[in-house]
């Protein structure tokens, strides 16, 4: 009676009698109450499904499992055998046609566009649905107490909001209403006032003169950390700055150590501690106006560093992402004029289609004798069919976007046959295609992204192992107590972060958030391997739970996997940046950490003759006190370096 091959044989399914399509099925669900149903229909076990109709509309459907009317046996089962998951009872035998009709009459269908609200209660055992305000028409009881799973899939298909008074009740929001609410909340979130943005923008325009200093001054006000005094020639490289800073910190440490002995300080903490973490607010996304203003009359992007700084700070407005990403992913060179880009685009389009033709023109016989190609193709097919299928852009049977996804990945196989296709690549491509909506552009952006992370897909996984090792070292430096805990639980190898790193957190965030995170990471600011600091930021926030609950090997993995879709991208970015500043200004910064983050190595002790002068000529903020700066209504505590050194 069931068309069992819905996912694999869409064509065939259409021809059969089955006109609906199960997107999700949950067995072991008891119909507890249903308005207008005779009592005999209740308390029977069935399957709760999310079903797609031929016209694309969806509904929740409850179907009875047993085709016979409920006997006392089932009634007993309801409460008594709740905790034992017995063998499933699927009675398919018996008088099919008449029973089937009888059962059909008992099916309950709730169209999703009529659904007003739903509620999960009784410790994930009960779920209620309402299509009319104030009335719960249907109540379902989940035998296995796993209503949260159905809930999470249902939430993929309807837009919901939690109600204020009851956190277990969800109200279905109409799409247009929701966007209003979202817009409003974004406006509320906007931490920069219009004025400040302009101030910031003016400062950004000064990038040519003092690129790094200007940004730091404007955004973080971490004057004492990186920005101190004017550059000698007004055009200092970041590396020089950092080098200066490091030597300065070192001498500060030496100074304080000697002072401490002679003066009133008696205890010097032997264990080096990090300076306090500055809290740095996120900025607003790069807007259309700003982006337009950044182009010279011929269409070249001027002030590349400034653009990157802006993007690092606040990301890119969604409306111009499709354009900005091409630059960030090295598809479009920043310095090209509009005319040059036009011919580049033409060239890249031809190149793409000639590579596409290479595999498209492969005959069946060739394929048969080309196992390496065949294997790659089969892997691509399998993964395309399970990439972001809950997103409307990729949902449903015969979705043309799936074909494009597949074509791009297959063409990439021809572009880079040695690397071929590796699981995870479809995850990387999906948001790019979703945004670009264009095969050729998505492909070249994908190529650019892969260029940045191709070592993730090494045959021997050397790239992944190196990153996990680097992460371990960063953890030991930044949050040694957690690193120690993990090591003691056999988790020191950080393997539980594998998914994060392989697809750059794609599985941990919604599409909207992953776009924000990726564009920030693509800027390459403020240091190399900033994505590892994102890992550190996430783990640091979980530190208390992981340690206080004494989580072991399995619990750590579970906890980390379950963080998916529960993370706030802005908070994490802000924390990661704070951690970066902690690292670069920490007096005991080791070469090992410098290498990971691409910072210049420490100067040899005999070189810095001039440091004391640099130090005293530094800036005018008091050297041993905490300074609270007001920035855009936020109070930011900045402890001067001398204090940090003292703390160390």
């Amino acid at each position, binding site marked *: 009676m*069931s068309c*069992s*091959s*819905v*996912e*694999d*044989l869409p064509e*065939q399914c259409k021809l059969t009698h089955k006109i609906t*399509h*199960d*997107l*999700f*099925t*949950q*067995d*072991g669900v008891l119909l507890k109450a249903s308005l207008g149903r005779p009592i005999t229909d209740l308390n029977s076990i069935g399957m709760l499904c999310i079903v797609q109709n031929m016209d694309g509309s969806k509904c929740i459907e409850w179907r009875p499992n047993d085709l016979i009317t409920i006997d006392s046996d089932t009634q007993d089962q309801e409460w008594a055998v709740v905790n*034992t*998951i017995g*063998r*499933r009872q*699927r009675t398919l035998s018996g008088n099919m046609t008449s029973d089937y009709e009888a059962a059909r009459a008992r099916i309950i269908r709730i169209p999703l566009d009529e659904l007003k609200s739903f509620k999960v209660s009784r410790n994930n055992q009960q779920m209620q649905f309402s299509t009319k305000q104030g009335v719960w028409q249907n109540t379902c009881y989940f*035998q*296995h107490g*796993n209503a949260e*799973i159905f809930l999470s*899939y249902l939430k993929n298909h309807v837009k919901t909001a939690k109600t204020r008074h009851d956190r277990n009740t969800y109200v279905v929001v109409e799409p247009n209403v929701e966007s209003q609410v979202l817009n409003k909340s974004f406006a509320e979130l906007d931490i920069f006032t219009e004025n400040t943005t302009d101030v910031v923008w003016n400062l950004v325009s000064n990038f040519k003169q003092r690129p790094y200093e200007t940004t730091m001054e404007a955004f973080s006000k971490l004057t004492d950390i990186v920005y101190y005094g004017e550059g000698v020639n007004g055009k200092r490289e970041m590396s020089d700055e950092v080098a200066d800073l490091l030597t300065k910190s070192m001498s500060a440490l030496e100074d304080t150590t000697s002072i401490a002995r002679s003066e009133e300080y008696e205890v010097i903490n032997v264990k080096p501690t990090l300076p306090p973490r500055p809290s740095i607010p996120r900025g607003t996304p790069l807007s259309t106006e700003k982006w337009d203003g950044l182009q010279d009359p011929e269409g070249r992007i001027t002030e590349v560093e400034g653009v990157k700084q802006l993007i690092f700070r606040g990301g890119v407005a969604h409306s111009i992402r499709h354009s900005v990403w091409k630059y960030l992913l090295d598809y479009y060179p920043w310095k090209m004029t509009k005319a040059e880009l036009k011919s580049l685009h033409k060239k890249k389009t031809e190149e793409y289609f000639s590579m596409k033709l290479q595999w498209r023109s492969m005959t069946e016989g060739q394929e048969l004798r080309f196992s390496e190609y065949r*294997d790659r193709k*089969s*892997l691509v097919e*399998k*993964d395309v069919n*399970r*990439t*972001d*299928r*809950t997103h409307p852009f990729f*949902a449903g049977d015969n979705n043309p976007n799936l074909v494009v996804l597949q074509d791009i990945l297959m063409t990439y196989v021809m572009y880079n046959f040695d690397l071929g296709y*590796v*699981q*995870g690549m*479809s*995850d990387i491509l999906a948001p790019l295609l979703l945004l670009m909506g264009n095969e050729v552009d998505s492909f070249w952006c994908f190529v650019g992204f892969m260029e940045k992370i191709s070592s993730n*897909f090494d*045959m*021997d*996984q050397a790239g*992944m*192992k190196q990153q996990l090792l680097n992460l371990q070292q960063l953890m030991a430096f930044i949050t040694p107590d957690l690193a120690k805990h993990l090591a003691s639980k056999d988790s020191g*190898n950080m*393997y*539980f972060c*594998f*998914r994060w790193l*392989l*697809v750059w957190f794609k*599985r941990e965030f919604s599409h909207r958030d992953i776009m924000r995170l990726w564009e920030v990471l693509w800027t390459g600011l403020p240091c190399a391997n900033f994505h590892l600091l994102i890992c550190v930021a996430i783990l640091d926030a979980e530190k208390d739970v992981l340690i206080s609950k004494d989580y072991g090997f*399995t619990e750590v*993995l*579970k906890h980390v*996997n379950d963080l998916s879709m529960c993370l706030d991208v802005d908070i994490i970015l802000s924390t990661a940046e704070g951690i970066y500043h902690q690292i670069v200004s920490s007096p005991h910064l080791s070469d090992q950490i410098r290498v990971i983050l691409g910072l210049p190595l420490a100067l040899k002790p005999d070189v810095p003759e001039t440091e004391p002068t640099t130090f005293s000529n530094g800036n005018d903020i008091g050297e041993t006190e905490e300074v609270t700066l007001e920035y855009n209504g936020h109070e930011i505590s900045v402890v001067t370096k001398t204090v940090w050194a003292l703390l160390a």
Partner: protein
Amino acid sequence: MAKTYDYLFKLLLIGDSGVGKTSILFRFSEDAFNISFISTIGIDFKIRTIDLDGKKVKLQIWDTAGQERFRTITTAYYRGSMGIMLVYDVTNEKSFENIKNWIRNIEENASADVEKMILGNKCDLDAKRQVSKERGEQLAVEYQIKFVETSAKDSLNVEYAFYTLARDIKAKMEKKQEASNPAGARSGTHQLRDERPKPTSWLARCSVL
């Protein structure tokens, strides 16, 4: 915290990419099926406690990424596993052929006495079948491993497979306990002989279902 179980068994699902490992696990742990599954990246596990001959047995079932490239990472999780489900897809010849490679992989990375079982999944897709049930059975005989065809989608034999594997592990464990106890050593070997004829019963059961 009080222990809520008598035994904890660590099980592992391995097999080629896309054979349905995650679906099998989802069916067993949640009794549900989702048409839009996503590929597993890295590793994850689920828990279900079952009742086995009066004992509460907590099954911790690990799900792994199937692609060969990730094996260096996933094999790290083989350690300590007491039972392994080797899964292939009856509609995919290659996944069946690779079972031999997966067995070799187990021999290299898991403990020698790990219990194994072969699952031929997606047996609901009869029209697309490439591997007959007989070939599956033959392979199982060759390696002396139990075998069953399953459908995570139609919930066919999934429960049976996990219960069987868990029961075998429990029997082996209890035997070991008896063996370490001098008085029970003799009866332990005797029980081992009793266990052997069982394969006929799973074959019979499998065709009934």
